[in-house]
């Protein structure tokens, strides 16, 4: 009843093609944006902003990047962590060389470097498909990790081998570094993620996004429609790596404050892949759901014992959360391979007829 589309008919193709054709969806999104931009910064604690919302947004952005490559274009990638690293180190070098340029500009530019690396490691995708391609992304992951350690120039030759984020400002407002408040950092990340999500949604519903999906579903048929496979695949790699690179730069500069190579290791690649799987491959909303789930679940698991009064080591909760996440992945794959996003869609379908269970939609 609430979710009825009745009465909302489209009179032009433009309105039919809109991102959110259903009015309830638009209202819902507006609500979410208001909550995100206004309510959360005002009422959220430092902990909530700094340790929950910021990481969630960063991972959601990386998940969008991976989802574009794996969920929409069908090229399985296990190198997400490394591509994030490329963005982070690129941003670091850029701001080291050009400290006066606004850091946000550097973040956006650093994505381009990640895109370039992504294209290079995506080149084999013309000859190599599926699982084999995943292994070449593993090559990218381990090789780039090695580069992050060996090429001292990347971290300005400092002894610890880690990047220390310098303080950057916009006017008088501290953006990065110890003096930057969680609210500031949160709003910067939120704005960037919101804009980039919109851009991704636009590209995905247009000709380029369609070409990716064609390659994913049947690349032979796509070729017979005139799509050049290499061009489509490389554009997917480029676009996806750009997003991962920006996410990496944001992760270091606006969240962690410093980073060692471990921040971009294979475990992170898998983490983001899990977010994409659980959230739903081929769904942008799913990226957010997956990121929220996989980031917040371990935190919740960590808190449950103390709430219940049971004493548990941090390591133990980590093991338990591994078990639960693994079991959930299997569960989802059995029950709904398309992840949370499809469950959400099905839920919306049910909402159409609720509270009349015997009506058909």
């Amino acid at each position, binding site marked *: 009843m609430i979710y009825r589309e009745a009465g909302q008919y489209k009179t032009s193709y433009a309105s039919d093609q809109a991102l959110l054709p259903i009015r309830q969806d638009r209202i819902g999104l507006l609500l979410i944006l208001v909550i995100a931009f206004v309510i959360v910064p005002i009422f959220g604690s430092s902990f909530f902003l700094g340790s929950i919302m910021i990481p969630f947004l960063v991972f959601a952005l990386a998940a969008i990047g991976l989802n574009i490559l794996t969920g929409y274009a069908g090229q399985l990638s296990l190198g997400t962590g490394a591509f994030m690293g490329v963005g982070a180190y690129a941003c670091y070098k850029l701001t080291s060389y050009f400290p006066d340029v606004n850091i946000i500009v550097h973040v956006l530019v650093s994505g381009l470097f990640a895109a370039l690396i992504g294209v290079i490691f995506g080149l084999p995708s013309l000859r190599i498909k599926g699982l084999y391609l995943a292994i070449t992304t593993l090559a990218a992951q381990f090789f780039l990790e090695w580069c992050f350690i060996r090429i001292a120039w990347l971290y300005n030759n400092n002894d610890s081998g880690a990047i220390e984020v310098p303080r950057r400002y916009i006017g008088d407002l501290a953006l990065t570094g110890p003096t930057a408040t969680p609210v500031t950092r949160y709003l910067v990340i939120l704005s960037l993620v919101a804009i980039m999500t919109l851009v991704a949604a636009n590209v995905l519903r247009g000709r380029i996004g369609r070409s990716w999906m064609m390659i994913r*579903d049947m690349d032979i048929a796509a070729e017979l429609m005139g799509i050049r496979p290499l061009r489509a695949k490389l554009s997917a790699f480029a676009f996806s790596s750009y997003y991962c690179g920006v996410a990496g730069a944001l992760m270091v500069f606006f969240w962690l404050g410093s980073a060692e190579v471990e921040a971009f290791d294979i475990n992170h690649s898998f983490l983001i892949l899990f977010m994409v799987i659980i959230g739903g491959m081929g769904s942008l909303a799913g990226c957010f759901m997956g990121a929220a789930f996989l980031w917040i679940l371990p935190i919740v698991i960590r808190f449950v014992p103390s709430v219940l009064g049971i004493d548990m080591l941090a390591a133990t909760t980590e093991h338990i959360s591994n078990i639960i996440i693994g079991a959930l992945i299997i569960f989802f794959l059995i029950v709904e391979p398309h992840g949370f996003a499809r469950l959400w869609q099905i839920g919306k379908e049910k909402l159409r007829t609720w509270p009349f269970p015997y009506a058909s939609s």
Partner: protein
Amino acid sequence: MTTATAGDSKTEVSTTAGSTNGSIPDGSTTDGSIPDVATSDGKATLLSVENVTLSFGGVKAIEDISFDILEGEIRAIIGPNGAGKTSMLNVINGFYHPQQGTITFRGKPRRRMRPYEAAASGIARTFQNVALFKGMSTLDNVMSGRSLKMHRGLFWQMLHVGPARREEIEHRQRVEEIIDFLEIAHIRKQPVGKLPYGLQKRVELGRAMAMEPDLLLLDEPMAGMNLEEKEDMSRYIIGLNDEFRTTIALIEHDMGVVMDLADRVVVLDYGRKIGDGPPEEVQQSQQVIDAYLGVAR
């Protein structure tokens, strides 16, 4: 019917030996090596296949076959299973490259062409096993046929206002016309994976039509259909040929359909051509009857 192409089909100019079809008992012959020759029908040659041989390892799928397709006609390719019909289409498409022989399209001979080049030069096709994009809706599948005609760059795609949006809507209109013509409007938003086989074949036809091809290759478009569906499909094919002037080559097993639809027929058996001409003539040929029909209708 014009196609906006990037004009990037690779052509190799090769000298073709004059092909003769003298060994085949048929009435009409066209010397494919001279382009645009007016035949007795007054139509120009759109595609000609000359002495094409295709083998996989030791197996000869196609052996020294020559025939032509005239502009605006409906050409049926028939023959028993394994005769090499689908392989022939794959060769025309650029999916397989023949070891010998030449394909001449619109007067330009070509040897090795990639499938997207064939698409760009105006050749579209459907498949025996329905090669739709199962993860996408009907509308998106048909829209995917417009890929070659959409050019707006990344920048406008990202914003989706102005030029990109206009282009999308412009092509959407065209696609909706095709959807109306094929009577699949009621399923346009459904994912094609869920559709019944007959409808899937129709969507595939729509996708091929969206390319606005000069030559449309149909691989068993009626397979698995009941009488009613076959009548619908025949209607669409005739409509395509009449209204949109699309040249059609189709592989078909149903002789009734072939008799009704085709202007001319070419018959294959074990990779060789054993018949070439109007349907009535081919039907009477003893060689064809022995190989294929069993009983003259």
